[in-house]
């Protein structure tokens, strides 16, 4: 192993460990509230309202709802973790600890992305475990389920990173989740199949990238989807590459961090 590789690996492990320690340190903010929210969705939408609904794509509504709620938590927590953590590092200026060190930009970005993915995917697992109290768990295609969860988490961690880089005050990291992420998630097939929508809403929904991710994950778990799985992977890959490249560019140029 080269000297540089070893150094970068130590730096990466340091950032990831620090991110995980942060998630654990403030567990009452990072892990518990999303689990409570997901439980409420299962009770209200799954049990109370869902019991009056027809099957969707051959599955009871509660079972159909599980992949959507898992993805919802993966998306919001991956995004929220990195925005609060990286913006906090900027706000308290300890991001400078990394900027003055030999750690390359890609290692810093990877460390924060992995940290955000750990939280997003942990919440995904927690929601899956909670769902077993309401319905039986189906995983038709484990590999698709896992890769979709990971890719989605990565995409939204990257998007959150870009948000944190440009944010100048705490309000700036709340605007996107409130006015963009939440509406897109609710309208991204978490609670329904777009086959149930008439035109033009069906076509309009196809412009929502979250729809592709939720449906790919639902395909992985239940084997049903409104979207062709290949198209869903292409959309996720496109966003992962574009946002990853943009995030690296921002970090390398020090935009929002260096004068």
């Amino acid at each position, binding site marked *: 192993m080269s000297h540089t590789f070893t150094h970068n690996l130590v*730096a990466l492990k*340091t950032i990831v460990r620090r991110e995980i320690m942060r998630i654990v340190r403030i567990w009452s903010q990072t892990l518990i509230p999303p689990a409570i929210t997901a439980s409420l969705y299962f009770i209200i939408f799954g049990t109370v309202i869902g019991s009056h609904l027809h099957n969707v794509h051959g599955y009871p509504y509660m079972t159909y709802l599980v992949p959507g709620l898992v993805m919802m938590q993966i998306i919001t927590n991956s995004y929220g973790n990195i925005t609060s953590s990286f913006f906090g590092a900027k706000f*308290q200026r300890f991001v400078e600890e*990394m900027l003055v060190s030999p*750690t390359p930009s890609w290692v810093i970005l990877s460390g924060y992305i992995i940290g955000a993915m750990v939280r997003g995917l942990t919440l995904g697992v927690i929601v899956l475990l909670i769902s077993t109290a309401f319905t039986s768990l189906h995983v038709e295609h484990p590999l698709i389920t896992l890769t979709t969860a990971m890719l989605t988490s990565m995409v939204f961690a990257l998007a959150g990173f870009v948000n944190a880089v440009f944010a100048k005050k705490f309000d700036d990291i709340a605007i996107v989740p409130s006015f963009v992420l939440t509406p897109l998630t609710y309208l991204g097939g978490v609670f329904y199949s777009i086959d149930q929508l008439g035109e033009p809403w069906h076509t309009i929904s196809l412009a929502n990238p979250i729809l592709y991710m939720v449906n790919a994950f639902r395909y992985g778990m239940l084997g049903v989807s409104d979207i062709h799985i290949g198209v869903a992977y292409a959309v996720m890959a496109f966003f992962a590459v574009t946002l990853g490249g943009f995030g690296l560019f921002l970090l390398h140029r020090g935009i929002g961090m*260096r*004068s």
Partner: protein
Amino acid sequence: MTQAPALEITDLRKTYSNGTEALKGVSLTVQPGDFFALLGPNGAGKSTLIGILSSLVNASGGTAKIFGVSIHEQRSQAMHLIGLVPQEINFNQFEKPFDICVNAAGFYGIPRAEAMRRAEKYLKELRLWDKAQHPARSLSGGMKRRLMIARAMMNEPKLLILDEPTAGVDIEIRRSMWQFVTGINKAGTTVILTTHYLEEAEQLCRNIAIIDHGSIVENTGMKQLLSKLDVETFVLDTSELPAALSDVDGIELRRVDDHTLEAEMARGHDLNSLFAMLSDKGIMVTSMRNKANRLEELFVRLVENGSKQENAA
């Protein structure tokens, strides 16, 4: 083989996006092992210069090399050689000092076991070991400053840059900090210091550069600089002074109050005539001291000259 300078800056320039020209072609050399003072009034360009060296500020032009390694072309290697103690507190206030130090070492690729050993060593040397597991936000101002020094030492840098590290720190802690920094300088670490306490620079540093309005206005040895000071003012505490006192040959006297006298004279002037005159008048001198820090006098003159030239231009 001659060792490369610890720091070699050539024609370094920085113009901010708002048009402010913070550095106007600064050139500077610091030799290995030096304890170097970089002084200047607020807004002179000190922090911009340090920011460029530590890669927090992008230079608009010029070059900078740390022990012969370019900070622009070989950034990673150059950053391994530097330790930075910034002016502002910039660690995670929610973390513990021990973790802050260990993490900082991690960013330099130092394995965790070695990082933990170094963290213990430097926190102990800077008298912070008993606070190592407390949240950093609970530390006092002086402790936070010392923590930043301990953190900067984690990669055991060849060049340590201290940007006003003693601002707002009481005298005792300041002394213990300087004891530590002097020790590592003697052990071979080159130190660059900016401070507002000019007596510190005079006591600690061997060489000095004064920067003003983005340009170096003086760059020389501390002794050579101080030898340029041609006038000294002494303050004498005396028994009761008469209402009027005439000047003694070559010494200008100012009566401050009934028991205090100021005497301004050329550097090296004979003081015997002053004491003889006071003795003749039955005035007893109980104590005597330099009115101002010598470096401070020079600093003020150089900066005032710089401002006059700037205004004239």
